[in-house]
């Protein structure tokens, strides 16, 4: 799932993004696996969902700390995007907890999560990379 152009040039953040994409890829393969009955995939799917949700929070916190450390000017906009992203996940987790973990709903969710993640990393996070490069450029002069 990971593509090199998602890279922002900050190693710790890129590594966390790779980890996110890898786990999301595993999650998607699991919820789309037609060879195994849904009941037999469900526990693993729940476990992966828990992990993903936790990892997203860990990564966003870490990324926000990094932004603070470099005095990133758009940190508040970025924090708000993180908040909305987490809210999007929480809304689905609520649906799952209330209505059961159906295969269709899990597939629907995994596709949205993929889209949100690509968009967030492909757009907002690229701005962090750009800022870091500009900062380094100025430092060299």
């Amino acid at each position, binding site marked *: *799932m990971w*593509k090199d*152009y998602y890279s922002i040039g900050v190693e710790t953040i890129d590594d966390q993004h790779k980890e996110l994409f890898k786990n999301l*890829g595993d999650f*998607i*393969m699991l*919820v*789309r696996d037609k060879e195994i009955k849904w009941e037999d995939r469900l526990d693993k799917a729940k476990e992966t969902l828990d992990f993903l949700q936790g990892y997203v929070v860990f990564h966003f916190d870490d990324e926000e700390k990094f932004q603070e450390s470099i005095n990133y000017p758009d940190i508040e906009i970025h924090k708000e995007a993180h908040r909305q992203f987490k809210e999007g996940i929480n809304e689905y987790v609520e649906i799952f907890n209330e209505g059961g973990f159906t295969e*269709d709903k899990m*597939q*629907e*969710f*995994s*596709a*949205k999560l*993929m*889209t*949100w993640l*690509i*968009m967030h990393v*492909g*757009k907002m996070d690229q701005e962090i990379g750009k800022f870091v490069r500009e900062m380094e450029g100025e430092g060299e002069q």
Partner: protein
Amino acid sequence: MKAEYINSFYNASKDVFKLMLDLEVKRGEVAVVEGLTPSKDANIILGITGDFKGTVSFSFTEEMALEIVRIMSGMEMDEIDVFVSSALGEVTNIISGHATTNLSEHGYICDITPPQVMVGEYKSISMANEKALIMPMETNIGEFEVAVFVPTK
């Protein structure tokens, strides 16, 4: 219909396709259609509210729909299933979100309603008493259409 309206959807499609799929989008000639508009295998409809009220639809062939999701996921897709529909719905949701942001820069405040994905059996889309502007968009992986419907006054 103001040019900003259709342009904002073109620019948003271009930006989002570049960011998410690393694909260039070129626009074809815009056509005005009354009543029925042709549809493709996967059609996504979103409502627009606010200063511009109307509907926007995105139409993809099955081949292109599957290819978009294959690029995103890195996995082969063989049918427009829940996963593919959900991903397409979200991509068009993001495009429309960008389009409304573009419109707000022109002073028009709009919002969008959640995407409705219709697959297959619909041969045409009709919005009663509405004129549609249809804009074909070309990419390396095929052509899709964006239609913008606004109520006739």
